[in-house]
């Protein structure tokens, strides 16, 4: 696999690679995001037709399952019976009555050990001396490990496909600590209190050599302090990696009017009537799932190591544990029970290594749960960034040049460092046409909390830059900001060279965009927030009201649906005697409702009710493989696998029913778990079919289990689209900001379950708002987070919402199951730009360093006033002359 991994990320001084990547996109025409030619469209159509698969006649050509490029042609919504309805979430009743089981909700095994980890008090230091002998003798203490005790295996904690695009820079324990909270020692004791006591004792017996910490993102690459100076850190795939300069990853690409289709930025800026350049600083944030990271492990009756973990990625966890613990993969089983929220932070294999070592060495079951404080300081965060956008545009609205330069701060370890960075470009830049586009991104190490996957995954940070710039540019060229966006956003039948140029650790997959519900998102959102009327009214109102200023702002967004030709999901469906089905899938429902969505897709395809599908997810022993719940992939990707499995099951049911009825296979139809024969006018229930298949019947002597496995990979990553609107009131005397109204509209293709899909929009929008207005990591000068509690890190509660309106603007995505694409991530990206733009429209001040707290707003107002006073003096002098 490594051989096929192409190198798209080159060092700065290697433009040849960039040219190559761009060449392949064949973009030599005037517009870089041009419409495809008739020939290209025809070829795409032919490919589509060739790959469209029919429900009832799928001759097996090959043992390797063909992944369909496109699903069955448009099924009108009215004809579906299970897909497109707000059916009951399959686990809901258990969740609200407290019977569903999360990691800690089983009867605890006897002899359970409790794990506590001593975190570093310093951001950057070397452990000079550590004495744990006293701790080892303390009451209840069973095991104490330091870097001296565990094998040093360099790997990543990022739960990504193999080989991972994140550097192998993280041993379980190290002599060096790289951020406040980094592991110093592990203790396992009979009780939690005893483990804590032992940690306190060890803390008294450690001597550190404190090193200068690297705390500034922009200065990291030139710092004399090197965070990863160890010799054994490396990138497992051929990508740029230069830890000696705290330089974790580099990506660059460009496309446009230059030679061989690369960008000619100089020309782009020259062609423009206005060129603007701005820096934006999206900030640190934590996912804050209500259930913190927690993992249990034990040895089963066959001496196998079992993990019960709150994880998004059971299979990656199993693989990374085999690597870390140096035991055969077959000895490991990972069970994912109900998960209490994740949002990306549990795409990290964080606790399993410690649990695994303790259980293997003590042969006792153990539990390691993070405290809320540890969750903030020691789990994963949103990569904070410096986003520099330079844009050139003509007065007619043509964008002649768009440059995005990013420095991303991955903290002490490079988890998701490269892929979050490349997603900044690939999930944001294709949204608008631009004659010349360049993307240059760097990820740096610092001695701050570790970045990771977080809903939005880079697009959140980058969209803050571009969507703020879109407003600034619209104002500069004298165009309505919505019109400016409508003019330039991508339309059906179009593509962007960026999609091909930027993949995840390799080239992307070319794609023509077919479903774009953005115009409806914009129009409907405008209406709901009363855009036209209010923008005019507030201009007048603001001129007369000296202290209370109101403003509206908006933004447009896109994301993706799965990682094309990288991610794979699979599903097993088998039939029971009563006509119900077990569906065992690897896709990890984290509370998102994917179990329900898959049940609806399976039921629709087979011809039964979703309540007849018994869903079980996920367990590496019991269910099929799935990469996990990330990259907005589950509905789109595993939904495809579900259709593949369900179609095979349906074919088997039809063949048994045909035998029973003496009917031709082609003449059998299914509705509501009953098979009907067209000629014989007979009918046979699913229960009869299942019983006949299992126990035999008059015409059926070869008994078999009705059941099948389906797999799926995607060849595209169709973007969902969204438009967000915000209405704010600002008190110019105090800086106080009141979010009066927030509107989020999202095009997710077909909403398999509109209620659950809308819930995803609402949850993400709320998180976006909270992130934009109140959530903030506060560090002291030495890099320690000062506010790692819910009391001091403010996430929004029900009482903080004034008015939040969310809606779905459905389109039909031909490559997705029943027309679906993703919905989960995109809506977290709107808060920063939409509210930022609204603030600007209210008070004429642009805040580039969120969150938009009253303190920052007031400071910005004062700075603006001071500047205006200065400016008013200057022209007065000129006028005199």
């Amino acid at each position, binding site marked *: 696999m490594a051989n096929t991994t192409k190198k798209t990320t080159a060092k700065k001084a290697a433009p040849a690679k960039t040219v190559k990547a761009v060449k392949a996109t064949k973009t030599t025409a005037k517009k870089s995001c041009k419409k495809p030619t008739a020939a290209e469209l025809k070829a795409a159509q032919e490919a589509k037709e060739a790959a469209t698969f029919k429900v009832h006649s799928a001759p097996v050509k090959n043992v390797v399952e063909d992944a369909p490029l496109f699903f069955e042609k448009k099924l009108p919504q009215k004809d579906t019976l299970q897909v497109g309805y707000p059916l009951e979430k399959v686990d809901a009743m258990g969740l609200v009555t407290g019977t569903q089981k999360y990691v800690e909700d089983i009867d605890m095994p006897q002899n359970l050990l409790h794990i506590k980890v001593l975190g570093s008090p310093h951001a950057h230091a070397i452990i000079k001396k550590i004495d744990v002998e006293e701790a080892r003798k303390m009451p209840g203490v069973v095991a104490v490990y330091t870097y001296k005790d565990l094998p040093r295996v360099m790997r990543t904690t990022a739960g990504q496909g193999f080989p991972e695009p994140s550097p192998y820079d993280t041993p379980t324990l190290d002599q060096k600590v790289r951020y406040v909270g980094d592991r110093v020692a592990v203790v396992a004791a009979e009780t939690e209190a005893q483990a804590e006591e032992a940690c306190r004792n060890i803390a008294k017996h450690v001597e550190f050599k404190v090193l200068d910490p690297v705390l500034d993102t922009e200065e990291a690459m030139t710092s004399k302090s090197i965070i990863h100076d160890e010799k054994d850190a490396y990138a497992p795939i051929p990508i740029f990696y230069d830890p000696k300069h705290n330089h974790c990853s580099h990506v660059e690409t460009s496309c446009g009017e230059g030679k061989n289709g690369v960008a000619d930025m100089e020309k782009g800026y020259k062609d423009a009537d206005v060129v603007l350049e701005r820096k934006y600083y999206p900030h640190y944030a934590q996912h804050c799932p209500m259930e*913190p990271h927690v993992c249990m492990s034990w040895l089963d009756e066959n001496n196998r190591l079992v993990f019960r973990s709150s994880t998004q990625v059971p299979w990656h966890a199993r693989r990374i544990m085999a690597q870390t613990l140096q035991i055969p993969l077959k000895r490991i089983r990972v069970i994912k029970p109900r998960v209490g929220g994740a949002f990306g932070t549990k795409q990290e294999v964080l606790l399993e290594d410690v649990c695994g070592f303790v259980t293997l060495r003590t042969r006792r079951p153990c539990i390691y749960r993070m405290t809320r404080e540890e969750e903030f300081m020691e789990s994963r965060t949103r990569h904070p960034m410096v986003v520099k956008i330079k844009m050139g545009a003509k007065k007619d609205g043509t964008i002649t040049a768009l440059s995005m330069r990013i420095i991303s701060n991955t903290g002490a370890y490079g988890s998701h460092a490269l892929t979050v960075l490349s997603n900044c470009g690939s999930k944001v830049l294709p949204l608008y046409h631009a004659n010349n586009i360049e993307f240059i991104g760097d990820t740096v190490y610092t001695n701050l909390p570790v970045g990771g996957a977080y809903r939005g995954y880079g697009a959140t940070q980058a969209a803050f830059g571009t969507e703020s710039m879109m407003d600034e540019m619209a104002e500069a060229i004298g165009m309505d900001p919505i019109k400016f966006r409508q003019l330039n956003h991508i339309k059906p039948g179009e593509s962007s060279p960026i999609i091909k140029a930027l993949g995840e650790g390799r080239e992307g997959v070319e794609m023509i965009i077919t479903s774009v519900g953005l115009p409806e998102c914009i129009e409907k959102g405008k209406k709901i927030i009363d855009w036209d009327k209010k923008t005019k009214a507030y201009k007048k109102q603001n001129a007369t009201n000296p202290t209370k200023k109101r403003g509206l702002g908006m933004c447009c967004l896109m994301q993706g649906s799965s990682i094309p030709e990288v991610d794979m999901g699979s599903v097993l469906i088998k039939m029971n005697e009563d006509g119900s089905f077990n569906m065992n899938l690897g896709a990890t429902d984290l509370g998102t409702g994917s179990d329900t969505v898959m049940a609806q897709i399976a039921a629709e395809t087979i011809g039964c009710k979703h309540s007849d599908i018994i869903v079980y997810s996920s367990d590496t022993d019991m269910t099929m493989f799935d990469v996990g719940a990330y990259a907005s992939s589950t509905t789109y990707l595993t939904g495809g696998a579900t259709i593949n499995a369900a179609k095979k099951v349906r074919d088997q049911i039809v063949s048994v029913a045909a035998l029973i009825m003496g009917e031709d296979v082609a003449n059998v139809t299914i509705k509501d778990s009953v098979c009907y024969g067209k000629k014989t006018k007979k009918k046979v229930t699913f229960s009869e079919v299942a019983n006949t298949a299992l126990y035999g019947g008059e015409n059926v002597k070869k008994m078999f289990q009705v059941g099948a496995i389906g797999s799926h990979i995607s060849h595209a990553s169709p973007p969902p689209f969204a438009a967000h609107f915000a209405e704010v009131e600002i008190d110019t005397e105090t800086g106080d900001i009141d979010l009066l109204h927030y509107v989020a509209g999202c095009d997710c293709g077909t909403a398999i379950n509109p209620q659950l899909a809308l819930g995803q929009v609402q949850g993400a929008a709320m998180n976006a708002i909270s992130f934009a207005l109140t959530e903030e990591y506060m560090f002291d000068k030495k890099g320690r987070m000062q506010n790692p509690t819910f009391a001091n890190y403010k996430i929004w*509660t029900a009482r903080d919402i004034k008015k939040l309106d*969310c809606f779905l603007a459905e389109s039909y995505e031909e490559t997705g199951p029943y027309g679906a694409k993703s919905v989960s991530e995109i809506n977290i990206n709107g808060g920063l730009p939409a509210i930022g733009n609204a603030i600007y429209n209210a008070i004429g001040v642009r805040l580039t360093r969120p969150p938009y707290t009253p303190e920052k707003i007031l400071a910005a107002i004062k700075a603006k006033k001071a500047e205006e006073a200065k400016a008013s003096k200057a022209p007065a002098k000129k006028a005199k002359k």
Partner: protein
Amino acid sequence: MQLNCKVNGKACCFEIEPNEMLADVLRREGYRGVKVGCREGSCGACSVMFNGKPRNSCITLAAMAEGADIMTVEGLGTPDKPHLLQSCYVKHGAAQCGFCNPGSLISAKYLLDNNPNPTEDDVKEALDGNLCRCTGYIKRIEAILDAAQQMKKSAKSTRGKK
């Protein structure tokens, strides 16, 4: 030491440590609907009804529950016989990951016990102590308002019958 209290209507006697928190004791005794999300009394996942009022059991010493009447989500209703609030949560899609549901249901019950006619603002106020990161609170507010509406209707119809 021993703790004598009532849990979900049943008289209980638990063996506890003096420094143990109520949430931990309840969970150990099988009431696992009580969730622990922060151990600082901020997230409300551990809310239980304590002598008729919601209380964060993660920062309540178990010993303080001597003689107390406690209700956990298990006492509110079961999958076979759910409370109207629980049915409305299901109907409105208010459960995503569900980790915060047991706590917020206790807060919601307290609201409806004391205010059969709540406004949207009343509901928001009542849920202020129950953090949720999944739903954006919207569906939960809808569910509680719906439950209040239905309770009123059924109260009216029973009155009418009399």
